[in-house]
């Protein structure tokens, strides 16, 4: 038969063929995905799809959160607006209470209605210590379903910024399916029959691909008039960027979210490949790459020295040489362009740094760093050698190249930096235990609030192991207090926020606990062979992020799927 069988929430039983491992889809007829109904993407999934557990945001199959499970809000970083999604609205009804109105008529893929119980259940999962948002319960007192469409949250401390982040970042899971699961199951379960509220459901997977199929009756079609266009989304597991490039050129890939150096040539050439901007930087910015100095080590404990380092780095050379202009040099604050409004330009122009070898030399000399042994490199103030290692994970070639540029610039300014490429494990070890001099890092992504970055830079206390924040072990109580103050600012209080950020930026630029280098791109290259109307900077095109990256669907990635159009369709 040629009629595609109705997709169901449950993965179909494997069709006895026993061919390369993947459970075969329903019916023999759809041996191949019809090209014009399928969206091929890549650049998200770094390993074979192994779980569909939305709590495992870092390694669940792409789209588990976003295509299957949905969040309460979407956040649009370009315009700094929250789009109600599963929620219809959310308001602070008091100093410490927040009330959420849920959308009506939303059903889970198995037909059960979505209710306030599901939201409460999901939030309460955080009471399990190993659930990533367990810390929420450090300042949340209780979550209760006032009625099936209303949830009320009572906080012990109103961290507005964090909460705003939470509501668009976490997927709601169905209580009727998840309740009774053990902590181990919740955290480590495969959840191989994901039942969500989103537009897609599981179709099939293999080692090198994840296929989703559109499901009927997605609430947004009726409620918002939005409809995802591709019937199938096949997300190709990255084996290498090279494969992605090959597929893209052969029109086998519609959206590549891989970092494809050299893509500038393809955009300029006649290959039918676009990026968001038709000219440098080609990509939207997604995160900031920082050079993190270990502020507990000599001579990096000296802000003057750190400033000299900052001034010695030829960021432009990295941007052009290593990245072929696919990225942008970062501003001295490191805040992404989307957060420009939180940057106090006055502070920046007064205290900011820029690439200037001579100035770096002068800074060093002024601070008392001299070259005593005549090797062209300065020593510590006590005369001992100041040879610093910059660690970058082995195999991360672009960073390896970048670190060479950094070292080169530093040498020119008289600072002895050698790049070193330990394995990732070893690097993580050194980084978290503070046994390093300099390290490159870009782990914080774009979000609704610059608080995210400041939390990353200034968080206290400094522990024995610094796992995800403040790798440089920078201790400044005042700054951390300011960061916490920022957390308490209302999301819509832009002025209030800016006042705090301006204070923070002063400290930041005086002390340089981290040195922002460049903004990594939101790698996206699109092909118009099958799907058109991709988001771009051109007028009249959608402005949602053209990405399938994990945690980006709720930043508007899912909207992109509703905007694209089949060629000729």
């Amino acid at each position: 038969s040629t009629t595609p069988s109705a997709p169901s929430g449950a993965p179909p039983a494997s069709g006895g063929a026993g061919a390369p491992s993947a459970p075969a889809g329903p019916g023999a007829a759809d041996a191949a995905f019809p090209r014009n109904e399928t969206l091929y993407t890549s650049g998200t999934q770094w390993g074979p799809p192994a779980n569909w557990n939305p709590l495992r945001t870092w390694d669940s199959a792409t789209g588990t959160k976003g295509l299957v499970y949905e969040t309460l809000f979407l956040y649009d970083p370009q315009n700094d607006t929250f789009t109600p999604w599963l929620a219809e609205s959310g308001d602070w009804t008091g100093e410490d209470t927040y009330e959420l109105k849920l959308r009506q008529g939303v059903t889970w893929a198995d037909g059960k209605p979505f209710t306030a119980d599901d939201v409460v259940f999901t939030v309460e999962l955080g009471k399990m210590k190993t659930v990533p948002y367990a810390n929420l319960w450090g300042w949340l007192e209780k979550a209760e379903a006032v009625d099936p469409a209303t949830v009320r949250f009572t906080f012990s401390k109103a961290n507005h910024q964090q909460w705003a982040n939470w509501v668009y970042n976490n997927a709601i899971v169905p209580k009727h399916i998840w309740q009774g699961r053990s902590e181990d199951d919740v955290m480590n379960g495969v959840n191989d029959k994901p039942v969500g509220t989103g537009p897609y459901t599981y179709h099939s997977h293999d080692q090198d691909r994840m296929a989703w199929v559109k499901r009927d009756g997605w609430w947004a079609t009726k409620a918002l008039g939005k409809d995802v266009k591709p019937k199938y989304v096949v997300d190709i597991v990255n084996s290498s960027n090279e494969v992605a490039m090959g597929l893209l050129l052969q029109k086998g890939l519609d959206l590549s979210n891989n970092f494809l150096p050299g893509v500038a040539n393809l955009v300029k050439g006649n290959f039918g490949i676009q990026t968001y901007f038709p000219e440098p930087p080609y990509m939207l910015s997604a995160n900031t790459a920082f050079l993190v100095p270990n502020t507990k080590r000599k001579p990096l404990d000296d802000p003057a020295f750190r400033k000299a380092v900052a001034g010695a780095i030829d960021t432009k050379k990295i941007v052009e040489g290593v990245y072929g202009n696919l990225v942008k040099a970062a501003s001295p604050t490191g805040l992404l362009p989307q957060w420009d409004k939180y940057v106090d330009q006055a502070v920046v122009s007064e205290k900011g740094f820029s690439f200037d070898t001579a100035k770096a030399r002068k800074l060093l000399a002024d601070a008392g760093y001299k070259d005593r042994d005549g090797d062209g490199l300065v020593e510590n103030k006590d005369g001992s050698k100041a040879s610093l290692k910059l660690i970058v994970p082995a195999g991360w070639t672009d960073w390896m190249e970048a670190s060479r540029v950094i070292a080169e610039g530093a040498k020119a300014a008289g600072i002895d930096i050698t790049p070193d490429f330990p394995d990732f494990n070893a690097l993580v070890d050194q980084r978290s235990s503070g046994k390093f001099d300099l390290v490159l890092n870009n782990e914080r992504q774009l979000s609704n609030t610059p608080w995210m970055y400041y939390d990353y830079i200034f968080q206290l206390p400094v522990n024995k192991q610094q796992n995800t924040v403040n790798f440089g072990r920078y201790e400044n109580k005042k700054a951390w207090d300011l960061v916490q103050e920022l957390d308490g600012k209302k999301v819509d209080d832009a002025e209030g926020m800016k006042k705090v950020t301006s204070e923070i930026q002063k400290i930041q630029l005086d002390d340089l606990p981290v040195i922002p280098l460049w903004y990594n791109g939101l790698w996206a290259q699109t092909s118009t062979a099958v799907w058109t109307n991709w988001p771009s900077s051109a007028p009249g095109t959608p402005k949602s992020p053209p990405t399938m990256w994990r945690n980006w669907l709720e930043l508007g990635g899912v909207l992109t799927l509703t905007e694209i159009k089949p060629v000729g369709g």
Partner: protein
Amino acid sequence: MRRYFGRKLLVYGLTFLVAVTVNWMIPRFMPGDPVQSMLSRANVSQPAAVEAMRAHYTALFGLDLPLWQQYGNFWAALFRGDLGTSIWVFPTPVTDLIMRAVPYTLALLIPSILLSWWAGNRFGAFAARRKWLDNTALPIGYVLTATPYMWLAILLAWGLGVVAGIFPVSGGYSFSMRPNWSWEFVGDLALHWFLPFASLFLVAFGGWAIGMRNMIIYELEADYSTYLASLGAPRRLIRRYAFRNAVLPQITGLALQLGVLVAGALVTEIVFSYPGLGHLILKAIQNQDFFLLQGAFLFIVVGVLVANFVIDIVYVLVDPRTRIGMGGEAT
């Protein structure tokens, strides 16, 4: 005979022991904590949450036990066929991942080994026949064996794949396909299989051809060949005998080359992103998934050992000299 196999088994057993132990030891004595790097990938913002997860996963992977106990558990699990859980593809069991990759690797290895062995030997024997053939075929053989597997693979991928567009250059089957037993799908599989196969085949082919050519020259100089020639036997018969005898050392050669061929398959798979073990190993390395790396490595070791053992048996079966020597009937 019993003693012979007893001794072989002892060697294999010891090798296995050594391999397992090395395999178990290295990740545990190397810098870095796999759980920690797994969590650093998880990118969880709150240090407190990270700590909890860390304790949880350390216990989950059994890394909190004393070393001797971990070693014991490792062996016990091994005998249950349990190679642990992958970190990279959490929570898939390592055995699952390997079993999924193995068919692809075998589909490359078995035909390329057997065919290259067969064709290389034939060709080598054929080349040794005439001077001009020898002089043209030999250099080709040498260039082929000297070619790094991945380079030949890259050249083929570039020439036949990217430029000519005849063959796909990556993956096991098209992304538009879904596995089933239709001609279309099988054809697609074959199309993806061909280039990696060809590059493995060609490199190995050159080696066998040269080995055979050198071997057969020795055999043609052997006393029995001279005797036959003196009795006026036609070249054909002499060559046939020489070929048969020259093939025997090539069987042992096969055992010796097995490791190299497997290695060749690994890098070839990487070039073509062919979803076999090599690809898996590369990913395991890139993602610091040492449970997977261990599993894949053990699997290869066991595979090579088993293949070696099979070759040993085959050799005994085909060469009367070993068989009789072992029986002790004659000295």
